[in-house]
C-alpha cells in the first residue's frame, strides 16, 4: 500500500508524515504523534472517547480515515491547555467533580470547548446537546453539565477582564 503524505495542523503545529491511508485519524494521533489523550472506547462512533476538533468541530477520530483529515486544523486534548496552564474548562471539570476514571474526559472537554467557542452563554439544554455524543459511565451527566456551566461563567469573566 502506497503511503499517503499526511499534512495537517495539529494543536497549532504543522505535521507532515507518511501514513498508511487505511489507518484512522485516531491511530495516527495516538501512535505516530504520541497524542494518547485521545482515547479509543467503542471504535464505532458511539461513545465519543475519541473526540477531536476538526476545523473547530467535534468529530469521532475512530470514524475518520487519516487522509480524510489532511489539510485540516486538528485539536486534541493536548492542545487545549495554554503554556502548561490548564484551560478554564479543564479546571472547571476538576472542581465540579466531573472527572472520575477520566476515560471520557478528553472527549467531553473538547465537545464542551467546541460549544463554548461558538456559544459562550449556552443554556443547559445546549450543554446537554453538546455532550450528547459522549458517554460517561462513572460520573453521570449532572456534574458534567455543571462543569461546563462553571467554565462558561469563568470564560465570560476572563473576557470581561481583558
Amino acid at each position, binding site marked *: *500500500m*502506497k503511503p*499517503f503524505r499526511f499534512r495537517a495542523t495539529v494543536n497549532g503545529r504543522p505535521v507532515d508524515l507518511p501514513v*498508511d*491511508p*487505511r*489507518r*484512522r485519524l485516531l*491511530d495516527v494521533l495516538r501512535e505516530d504523534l504520541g497524542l494518547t489523550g485521545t482515547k479509543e472506547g467503542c*471504535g*464505532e*462512533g*458511539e461513545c*465519543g472517547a475519541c*473526540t477531536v476538533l*476538526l476545523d473547530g*468541530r*467535534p*468529530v*469521532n477520530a*475512530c*470514524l*475518520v*480515515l487519516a*487522509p*480524510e483529515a489532511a489539510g485540516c486544523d486538528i485539536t486534541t486534548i493536548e492542545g487545549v491547555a495554554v503554556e502548561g496552564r490548564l484551560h478554564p474548562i479543564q479546571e472547571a471539570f476538576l472542581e465540579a467533580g466531573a472527572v472520575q476514571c477520566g476515560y471520557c474526559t478528553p472527549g467531553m472537554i473538547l*465537545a464542551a470547548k*467546541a460549544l463554548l467557542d461558538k456559544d459562550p452563554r449556552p443554556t443547559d439544554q445546549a450543554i446537554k*446537546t*453538546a455532550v*450528547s*455524543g*459522549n458517554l460517561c459511565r462513572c460520573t453521570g451527566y449532572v456534574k458534567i453539565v455543571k462543569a461546563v456551566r462553571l467554565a462558561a461563567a469563568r470564560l465570560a469573566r476572563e473576557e470581561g477582564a481583558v
Partner: protein
Amino acid sequence: MLPPFDYHRPASLAEALFLLASLPGTKKILAGGTDLVPALRRGDLSPDHVVSLSQLAGMREIKEDKGFIRIGALVTFSRLAEFPLFLKGPYKLLAEAALQVGGPQVRNQGTIGGNIVNASPAGDLLPPLTALEARVRVCRQGGERVLPLAGFLTGPGRTCIHPEEILAEVDFPALPERAAGSFVKLGRRNSLAISRISLAAIVIRGEGGIVEEARLALGAVAPVPIRARKAEALLRGRKPSPALLEEAVAAISETVADSLGDRPSAPYKRAAVRGVAREALIKADPRFASGGC
C-alpha cells in the same frame, strides 16, 4: 488498521467518475465514513478500492434555483440543521430530522448522500425527503440520471445505484409560504437511538383555512419510507380540528398495520405511531390541537 484496500482521493467529480468506471475490482465510495468506516473495520465490507469524495467541494452546497431546493450529497447533518432556509417554515422538517441524528460528532461527519445510499429503514432523512417528494441526481462517467427518491430506494439497505455511480445531489420543489413541515421521531431521549418510528408531515394551507394538501411519510414501519395516503386523502379540503386530527391518526395507524402485517413489532408500532402522528400534525398546524382558524 483496516483490511487492505487502495485509497483514492480524486480532485474533481469527473476524476472520481473516471476512477469508478476504470478501476478493476470492487469499489466503495467514502463520504463522511460514519457507516462505511465501522463496516470496513468489522470486515462486513472488503472492497479493493475506496474512493473518497472529500475533495469535491461542489457537492457541499445548498442552492435555491428555479423553483427547486438543491442539496449537494456531501452536505452534513449539521449543515442541514443550521442552514437558515431550513430553520423555519415548510423545510423545518429537514433541520428537525438532521438534529435528531446521532450526537454532534456524527452530525458533523455524516452526510445526506450517505444517509440516502445507506438506505437504512431507520435513516432519519428519508421520511422528510419522501414528504418533500425529493429526487436524486446520480452521475456516472458520460451521463447522469435523475429519479424520484421513492424509486431509488429499493429495500432495506438497498438502492438502485450502480457501483460506478455517484449520488451528486438531492433536490425537491420549493413549497409555498403557507406550507409548514414537521418531523417527529420516537425514542429521541437517547440521542444515539436509531429511530424506531418517525413521521414527516407537510401541511399546505389553502383558501379559507382548509388543508389544500397534506403529505405524510412514515419511517421505520416498512423496508422503505411510505406515504400515509389514506390520511392524506381524508385531510384534503377539510379544516384542521381536534376531531379531524383523530380521524387522521386512526388512518395513519391503519397504514402502519397494513404495512407491518403480523410482524412481532406490529402491535407496538400501531399504537406508538398514534402519539407520533398527533405530535407531528399539531406541530405542522396547531389548529389540530385547538381548532379555530
